[in-house]
């Protein structure tokens, strides 16, 4: 046996000893608990248990007490939660848990439960984490009413990505689609510095945009300009065609139009 081979064997043996040691410590050492992942419904929870007793009845009793102490400690928080609700006038009722597919607006529901999905979108618009699902529904739903509900839900998610998603959806919908008619009025730049403002200005010259939509987009841009109160910023003005600029300026004038009584006084 060569020295190197015996060194390898020694290393392997040492490794096995270390692994076995780690296993023993993990299963019975430290805080004398062992942990395992278990599945309950769709939720993963931690299961805790005590080390095996060593056979004696009093040890089993000790284990029982220990387990009950752990349970009491862990359940105290949820009892406190229940008491907080009761103290605030709430009563406990038996109600089925939410359907995760509905809460997340899963597009798979379009095949069989489109009406339920539409009701969910209208009455409990999903959050941003489900943006992609809602965007898919906005373009894939069979019923126009569901597509309308989806674009409305996208708009309610707020600025940034949802606005970009609306622009993507708009490009995929036919101009006469009721969802697209609803969508255009929901494009709101946060201000002239919002990148969406630049996207909207580009749309003003897009041949795929109808005159009706162009007016609404121009009004959305003009409201941003008026709200910021500093006129049409140069970075936007430079990107606009002559006709687009004229339209935005027209909308600014429309929004600023002096009431008749003021005109009469001057």
């Amino acid at each position, binding site marked *: 046996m060569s020295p190197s081979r015996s060194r390898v064997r020694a290393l392997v043996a040492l490794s096995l000893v270390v692994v076995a040691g780690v296993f023993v410590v993990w299963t019975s050492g430290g805080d004398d608990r062992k942990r395992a992942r278990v599945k309950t419904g769709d939720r993963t929870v931690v299961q805790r248990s005590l080390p095996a007793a060593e056979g004696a009845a009093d040890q089993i009793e000790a284990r029982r007490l220990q387990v009950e102490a752990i349970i009491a400690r*862990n359940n105290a928080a949820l009892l406190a939660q229940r008491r907080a609700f009761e103290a605030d006038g709430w009563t406990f009722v038996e109600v089925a848990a939410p359907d995760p597919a509905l809460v997340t607006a899963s597009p798979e529901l379009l095949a069989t439960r489109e009406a339920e999905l539409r009701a969910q979108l209208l009455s409990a618009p999903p959050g941003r984490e489900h943006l992609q699902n809602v965007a898919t529904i906005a373009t894939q739903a069979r019923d126009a009413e569901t597509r309308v509900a989806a674009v409305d839900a996208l708009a309610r998610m707020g600025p940034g990505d949802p606005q970009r998603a609306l622009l993507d959806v708009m490009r995929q919908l036919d101009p006469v689609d009721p969802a697209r008619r609803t969508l255009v*009025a929901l494009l709101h730049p946060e201000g002239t510095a919002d990148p969406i403002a630049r996207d909207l200005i580009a749309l003003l010259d897009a041949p795929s945009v109808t005159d009706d939509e162009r007016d609404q987009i121009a009004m959305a841009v003009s409201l941003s300009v008026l709200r910021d109160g500093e006129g049409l910023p140069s970075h936007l003005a430079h990107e606009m065609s002559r006709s687009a600029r004229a339209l935005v300026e027209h909308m600014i004038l429309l929004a600023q139009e002096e009431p008749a009584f003021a005109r009469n006084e001057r």
Partner: protein
Amino acid sequence: MRRCHFALLTVALAAAVDVHPATAEPEWECWRGNGRACSSADLADSALRQILVMPTGYAEAERDAFWGDFDRLVADASNVGSVWSTQKKDRILYVGCFVAGGALGTPEATFGGAVLPHPVRDYALTLSLDAVSAKVNETKASAIPELQPMGVAILFNDSSHLGADNASPPSFVRGPYGVARLTRGDLQGGYIASHELAHAALNFLDEYVEEGFEHLSIRTLDALTRHLLLGASPQGRPRAASDRLAAYDYNLSEILANNGNDNIATSPLPSTVTSPISEPVSFPYEGGMFFGRGTFHAAGNNLMNSDRGMRADDDGFALAHSASQQRLIDTAFGASPYRANDRLRNAGPKNGWPTVGSTATVLMFDGDKNHQFQPTQHYIVQVGWYERVWTTCGQGARLHACATLQWRTSQKTVEPTARTIDLKASSLYGLANLVQLLFCDLGVAEVPLPNGPDFRLCERLLGDVAVDFLPTFTFRTPYEETSVPTSQSFTTYYWRFSTNNGHAASGWTGWSSFYRTF
């Protein structure tokens, strides 16, 4: 037509007796729309509805002229097509109350009535709504204890400014009745009176579109909501208020056009949850309340629409009502609500939003919270979460603690509370004219100021008014909120709600969630 004359100080009348005035000059009169006598028992009859008619710009010497105009208003409004005031003329009591004053436009004019240039149309009729309200209260306290008008009409002694009539629906004056302003010159035919009184008494909004705004959507204004509510420059905004507006879904469009006005909504699908007594309402035609886009109304030619910009043959004017309006009219005259209050949405915290602390606030949008005839009586809010319930598993030497996730739901009844929102004119900047146009058109013509007379919104250009004197517009909001005791950290809470209007409970909204962090 037989009138029942009542004079001031002669109100101790026997029920159902037609009483002649104690004085030769009646201060007030009452008659039914069908021309039958009105008795004190009628006034006390809760099945009947009252319209109060008062003058402005009529001098004492024009008392007879007012009563002649009053007669004409009642006769014409009661005999015009199949509009509500004609259909229900047996059930409407017109109470006229004469108040002498100076000429229109003078300081002595009753209620401060004046005819002035209007931001949208050529002229507008303006007056002090506070003064009208004070007179109604005074009359009720002294002369007519049974007075409980569903609408008030103010007759302007003017025949030269036709088409200047307008109205403030109750939802915009935050009262039990709205106020219609009519010139005596526009009484002929009954259309104007029945239309303006439909605003004031039924809380209907216009279904037509102002010229020039055919392509403008009310939803575009939602971008202004945060700006108007916060009322300060972005740098000066309180962080907490700004964060709150990011987490919650307030919208100017809903405050203006989905707030108890049954015939208009900001969605073609106003019914967002089920109603056990009706099919979902459908508003297929876009337009209304100033805007060509973003507001929707039902099919059917009717009194609140016009033939301009029709989207279909049944999207125009008629001296009649849409089926949807008709159901509301029946409810206004005593029938049970035709639907549950089903225009609902979970309005925040936005789904999945992280919250901090042991209390969270959930915000409910309820388009019928301020409904004139079927306001929400209470909400039921449900909050649910998954409890990690610990128990014993195994036995003997294998005994151990294990957890299961159990769904737990609690619910609470929440009474609606009056909630208002202030829109500060001082933060409008370049948008002042647009908002002024809009609000004048809606009938928000007078804005109370804390230390002085009303701000007459449609008389002065906001941009010309010093910032310190600019008014704050206060609107009732269609939002309700309640707190949730979220004592468990790192927990996702789910919630939903339903409404009850005293006749029917709505279905539930979908479940929304928020996440309690620390």
